[in-house]
């Protein structure tokens, strides 16, 4: 029952935060809600026993890709909405409440840590785990696609550098 409840909770968080992504007016807020959606999807992957995919989801999507998004949003310096005093106060209060909840959680976990219950052996570890199994498939059956994807990433990197150099530098080289 607990996995189903966790799935429902993660799914609700993912749906609500992805709705906020497309509904919120501020692009930075949209990006942060997208991070929340990706993290809850990572939780769902963990529930499904796909540990490696869940971790890669957090590292690549919520880490690398969203940092790139936020960097570009802030680099472009789009129109930002004016903040009113009420919103700031509300946000600060919410921050304190969330911090208190987090602190209570930590205290609770620490309490359990000091008084550990009986070790449950209901979940037997499969040998090697999900990551080893995935690596076995990836480097045997899917070796050629793996190499191709490495090539794709290299081409994308070169392309981004060429495009990101900008028109101005190009024109300077042309002597215009």
């Amino acid at each position: 029952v607990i996995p189903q409840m966790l799935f429902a909770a993660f799914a609700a968080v993912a749906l609500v935060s992805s709705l906020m992504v497309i509904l919120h007016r501020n692009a930075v807020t949209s990006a942060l809600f997208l991070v929340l959606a990706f993290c809850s999807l990572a939780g769902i992957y963990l529930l499904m026993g796909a540990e490696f995919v869940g971790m890669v989801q957090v590292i690549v999507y919520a880490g690398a890709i969203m940092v790139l998004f936020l960097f570009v949003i802030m680099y472009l310096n789009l129109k930002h909405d004016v903040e009113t005093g009420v919103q700031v106060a509300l946000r600060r209060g919410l921050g304190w409440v969330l911090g208190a909840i987090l602190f209570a959680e930590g205290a609770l976990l620490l309490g359990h840590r000091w008084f550990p219950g009986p070790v449950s052996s209901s979940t037997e570890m499969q040998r090697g785990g999900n990551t080893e199994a995935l690596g076995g498939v990836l480097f045997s059956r899917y070796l050629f696609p793996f190499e191709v994807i490495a090539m794709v990433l290299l081409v994308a990197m070169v392309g981004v550098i060429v495009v990101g150099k900008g028109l101005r530098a190009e024109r300077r080289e042309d002597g215009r």
Partner: protein
Amino acid sequence: MIPVGWSLALSAGLFMIGVVGVLVRRNALVIFMSIELMLNAANLVFVAFGRQMNSMDGQVIVFFVMAVAAAEVAVGLAIIVNLFRLRETVFVDEINLLKG
């Protein structure tokens, strides 16, 4: 065990939200985020069916999709930055010329 139908329903919801985001938003950056949402919905289906059929292939494909998504985001954001330098806007309905 989580029924596979739940994952499919969640994935359908995420994909629809992504499609609506692409259609209704003007900001090119938010449109890109919606595309990311759709890619994630597809990933969820791959993982769910991979577990249903008890094979690792779904997770391997998710790995490839993530790599392609990373490349796509990098190239797309570079294009958006160039577009902003050229036209001083990222609103797609103001970008209506092929000539810069």
